[in-house]
């Protein structure tokens, strides 16, 4: 049986009258990648902060949290020592250069300086920042800063890496580089917990996914299962006005319709049906594709903005 690194049961967190997290439960196995998916304000960041005691769970709930067997309420230092955290916003020390930013963090873990220097060299190589050793922080691009934040989180060889939207705002090359690196870390036995808005990212790198909405778990499973259990295999996207022209066709009897704004989507497990529908349409005004995690996500969390986004 595989080891559970994180076990969370019935945990809630309230800020004033806002229920940021409600009765959330999940488990993360060692050397896997677990992803939180959800719109802004779903409670993903709050849940992650509760794991390393940056945020305290509600006192009056019977919820329990265990990370490496430790409860963050009483043993935050043990958990923090074994974990690395990559925050959502850049909080590097602008006054210092790349190496100095890492050195400062090595002190927090009381690493001997010989080990620190070796570790910094290998981390800069690993994240492809070796030629930026002496650069000032403001000379780095957004992607370099994010890679440095990851290097900083890895300074003490954490067994658990927590990342809050690690690739938000980055270009596709850097995003893929980060996915690769996370994959390597996982192979080496690091457990990874991350939040993301990117469905592709979730699909590519997460072994398990938990979709959150308004502080609650909506669904959970492997990306593939979430896809196959919650949506049809194919989707035909077309403008609503085109849909209105063909909506009486008998072909549509075996499809499921979702409408949002000016777009209509027809879902079906049968590609041929959707192809037949598309033959009724003008060339170029529709898009026939495999359904993806985004379709599941939008189905689960609604297509409209909610008051927390």
């Amino acid at each position, binding site marked *: 049986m595989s*080891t559970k690194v994180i076990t969370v049961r019935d945990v809630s967190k309230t*800020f004033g009258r806002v229920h940021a997290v409600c009765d959330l439960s999940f488990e993360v196995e060692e050397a896997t990648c677990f992803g939180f998916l959800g719109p802004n304000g779903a409670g993903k960041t709050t849940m992650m902060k509760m794991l*390393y*005691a*940056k*945020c*305290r769970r509600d006192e009056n709930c019977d919820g329990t949290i265990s990370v*490496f*067997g*430790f409860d963050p309420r009483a043993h*935050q*230092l*043990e958990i*923090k*020592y*074994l*974990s*690395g*955290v990559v*925050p959502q*916003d850049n*909080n*590097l*020390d*602008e*006054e*210092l250069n790349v190496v*100095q930013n890492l*050195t*400062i*963090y090595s*002190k*927090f*873990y*009381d690493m001997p300086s010989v080990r620190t220097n070796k570790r910094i060299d290998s981390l800069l190589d690993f994240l492809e920042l070796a030629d930026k050793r002496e650069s000032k922080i403001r000379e780095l691009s957004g992607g370099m800063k994010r890679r440095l934040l990851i290097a*900083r*989180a890895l300074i003490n060889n954490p067994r658990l890496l927590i990342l809050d939207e690690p690739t938000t705002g980055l270009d596709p090359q850097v995003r893929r580089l980060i996915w690769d690196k996370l994959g390597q870390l996982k192979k080496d036995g690091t457990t990874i917990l991350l939040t993301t808005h990117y469905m592709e990212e979730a699909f590519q790198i997460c072994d398990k996914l938990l979709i959150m909405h308004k502080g609650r778990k909506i669904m959970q499973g492997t990306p593939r299962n979430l896809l196959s259990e919650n949506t049809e295999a194919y989707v035909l996207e077309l403008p609503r006005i085109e849909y209105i022209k063909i909506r009486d066709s008998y072909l549509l009897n075996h499809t499921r319709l979702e409408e949002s704004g000016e777009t209509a989507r027809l879902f079906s497990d049968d590609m041929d049906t959707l192809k037949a529908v598309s033959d009724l349409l003008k060339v170029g005004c529709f898009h026939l594709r495999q359904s993806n995690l985004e379709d599941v996500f939008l189905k689960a969390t609604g297509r409209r903005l909610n008051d927390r986004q």
Partner: protein
Amino acid sequence: MTGSNTKLYPPLHKRLYSVWYRHVRVYAKYLLSNALPPFLEPLIFLAAIGLGLGKYITKSMEGMRYIEYLGTGLLATTAMFTAAYECSFGTFIRLERQKVYNGMLAAPITANNLIIGEIIWAGTKGFFYAFSVAVVLVAFGIVHLPYCLGAPLVGFATGVMFGALSLLVTSFVKTINHFSFYFTGFISPMFFFSGVFFPVSSLPRFLQPVVELMPLTHSVRLVRAVCTNNYRPQLAADLLYVVVFMVVVSFFAAKRLRTRLVN
């Protein structure tokens, strides 16, 4: 699995040291621009007194020449100002704008460790600033070795007092502009009325107890006693005030600021 009895994480003194080290490294990065003013400021001040104002003040104050009286007072005020700025504007920017603390709190240090490390850093700056002023005073023959070597220690205590007090103020502050109330309403009056420029005894009688409540008054008395090697029994009260103030205010600062760091 990992829940053994041996401690994984660094001991308390190493954790406090790591916070302190972070501040030292950031401060030392711009050593020239950061370390020159503490030497220049007293020079300018003493020049103004020595070349100008001093000529008009011929009376001795509490048995000291005016330049000696004022110079020793500066040892305490310089520590007050540097600690007050560091733990108000400095802390607020680290907290709200740079989010430095968010990063540090992901490492194995608690919010309390971080706050106490911050206060020790304020004390260190107080030490360094008082030392700089002492160097200038010695160079001009205003105070004498070796007694003035004790002045940085009073500077440290002053830095801790005002570091803790400023953190307490910061815990209430919602926007950085609120600090003007603290500086104009509290720090500046203290600068002028705590026995730095003229003896407390020359103030109206009803004001004197108020001035005795102010932390700077006690720092100034202590630092003058150290520099002149003139210890009166009443100094025990000043020392007691400083110790109690450091402990009590640090406690409340940590208690309040903690809720802002961990929510």
